[in-house]
């Protein structure tokens, strides 16, 4: 939408958000190149020296209850986690904001259908929906992406719905209609950019929620099937014996926090950059 957008984005980004972006890049990269980056196999058990504290013989972040190298598991876990979290968030965002947009903009029966659909989804507590689906289809990555996507789509739908309602009557939207813009164009190019703020704010939240729900499922024993590493799963098992050895818990939680934080910061930066006035103000600094 903006020429030289990225360059501008960087030009206005604060050091913090750049750092955040870097972190994300690192995580993603290590996820992609896990086999080369990871110091050990994430599955290789060495039970005799389980629960090593960080640094102990070559295990930078220590070992878990099966004596597996935590760092390696984090790196491979990133694969699982990012695919699930990003995938689900994407599904939720696309599906949700679509329903919300058309629901609010077209109104009438479309609103009725889309919004009832959303509410029907909402009426299922996420954890329940997840449990049911996982119990039926097992907790494969794809299953999780779809189900978590479904679980979190309503958030975007309702949000978009509310926002769209208040801008749809704006004169510039009318203008677009008056100049024979197709409804998709109006929704996508006119309304969406103007309500992006709230949606972008919702993104990292959803991202966090997906990771948490995945973790919650692991806690209830329905997460990614072991021994495959997933951050959520690691937190869950770390919590079990936190009193004995908190390393696993701390390390894995910290990873999730940092990731969410980074996505949040980058999200904020993008939002500010999407807003012309902000961008000016930023330049002024």
């Amino acid at each position, binding site marked *: 939408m903006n020429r030289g957008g990225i360059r501008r984005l960087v030009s206005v980004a604060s050091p913090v958000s750049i750092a955040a972006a870097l972190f994300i890049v690192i995580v993603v990269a290590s996820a992609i190149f896990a086999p080369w980056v990871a110091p050990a196999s994430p599955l290789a058990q060495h*039970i005799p020296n389980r629960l090593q504290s960080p640094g102990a013989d070559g295990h930078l972040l220590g070992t878990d209850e*099966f004596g597996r190298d935590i760092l390696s598991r984090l790196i491979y876990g990133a694969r699982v986690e990012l695919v699930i979290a990003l995938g689900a968030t994407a599904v939720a965002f696309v599906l949700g904001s679509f329903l919300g947009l058309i629901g609010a903009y077209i109104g009438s029966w479309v609103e009725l259908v889309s919004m009832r659909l959303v509410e029907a989804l909402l009426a299922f507590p996420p954890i329940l929906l997840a449990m049911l689906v996982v*119990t039926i289809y*097992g907790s494969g990555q794809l299953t999780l992406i779809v189900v978590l996507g479904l679980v979190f789509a309503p958030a975007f739908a309702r949000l978009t719905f509310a926002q769209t309602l208040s801008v749809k009557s704006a004169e510039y939207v009318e203008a677009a209609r008056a100049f024979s813009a197709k409804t998709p164009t109006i929704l996508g190019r006119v309304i969406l950019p103007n309500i992006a703020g709230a949606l972008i704010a919702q993104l990292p939240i959803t991202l966090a929620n997906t990771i948490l729900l995945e973790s919650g499922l692991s806690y209830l*024993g329905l997460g990614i099937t*072991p*021994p495959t590493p997933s951050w959520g799963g690691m937190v869950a098992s770390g*919590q*079990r014996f936190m*009193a004995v050895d908190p390393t696993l818990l701390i390390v894995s939680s910290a990873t999730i926090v940092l990731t969410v934080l980074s996505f949040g910061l980058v999200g904020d930066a993008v939002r500010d950059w999407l807003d012309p006035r902000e961008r000016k103000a930023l330049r002024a600094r």
Partner: protein
Amino acid sequence: SSGGSDGDGSAASTNQVLKFGFSAEPAKPTTNAGTASTVNYQLYGLMHRGVMMYSDTGKVVPALAEKADQVDDTTYTFTLRSGLKFSDGSALTAQNVKNSLLHYADPANSARSYPGMKYIKSIEVTDDQNFTITLSSPNSSFLEFLADPSAFIVPDSELKEGAEADIGAGPFKLTSWKDGVGLTLKKSNDYYDAKDVKLKEIDVTFYPDATARVNALQSGDVDFIDYVPWESFDQLKSAGLTVKGAVSSFQVAQFNVTKAPFNNPLVREAVAYAINRDNANKAAFFGNATSLYGIPDTGSTGEKLWSHDPDKAKELLKQAGYTNGGPTVHLLANSTYTFLQDVATSLQADLEAVGFKVELTSPDWNTFTEQALKGQYDVTVQGEIANVTDPSAWLAVMVQPPTAANKTYGYNNDALNKALGSALSSTDKTAKQKYLDEAYQIIGTDVPFASIDRRTQAYAYDSKVAGFSVMKGFTQPYSINNLTNVYMADN
């Protein structure tokens, strides 16, 4: 952590109330559908009594009965204590005993004690105190079945469909039950041994979550908890609390013998040798278990069937025809019981170490059970507990039809069945042992299941609690019977 009553003679406190954290909410006690959960056992032990019971040392002793004699292989005579009463004050007569036991013997009621009671052919009541039980075939452990806490005696009113069995002849009576929260037991003065029961009241709170349970004990919300999670043993001990337990249930790998590869005994044997039991022990039980290379509580002959010997395992696989790389197998675990899943995870590593390729799935307990029942696995990990001590009785249940989720799928070995059968029915000790050893031999090579380890099941309590002791082996779950000896010491 070992059993045996601790004899600290500190002075008894004035308020004899024990705050007990149960590891789950028991099902409402009924005489139908005998739920097998430990917490139910604990509740039965406190509320109810049977003809026989396990003493604090784990021996089978008369309970409601004061005398029990075996006349011949299939005939037993009993004399009840005089003036027995149910906790509602009504009298307990031989007739009640007959009705209750026959009720359990009816398969339609699917009582927990059915496997034993089904041997009952008839019961004649001589008078209010005396009665005779005749068995359809000899069963050397019949008295043990009578001692099973679920074989409790109740008023006839409670033998009806859906009736709650909340009136019993036990040391305590149920006074309140808040669903999901807890229940209260008060000392029953109609209990035959009431004078020796010191606790006035037991306040039970349900703590389904292990961590919550442990925390409750540590923070002083409760005095006593059951089913201590293994990762917390040391933590609790170092916090100055008593952790007391005994090895009881044991974990086994069981197979689907109706299809390759495990229809081949050699491959099963390979597994038995591949398992690194010490690892499983560490990983799943934080070392609070003992590695098991055979059949528990069977002395040298039965307990040393296999060893950890990867090379031999590989060798066996070769013999079975897997010359380059072992077969690919589906290892079914369950996610509800973390320790079983952990055992499976460690097992997976062991199998892969000797050349198997393993796909592990781990659905929740119900799904697991269903799949296990249908034999939708190659190998799986289960926890086993016997409700009698006699191997010829409980081994039979484990290795013979009908199929159950905790039995090797489709296994049926006539030679083995015969050996166990004769052992069960033979009253002569040496003969019995001969048949048993024969059975062990068969198991050693035919491997209907591969034992892994035997977990310590522990209780933990604070310094206020005195006089508690734990039963050993398979009787460990009955240890709560011993709360009759417990008293609150004040300090």
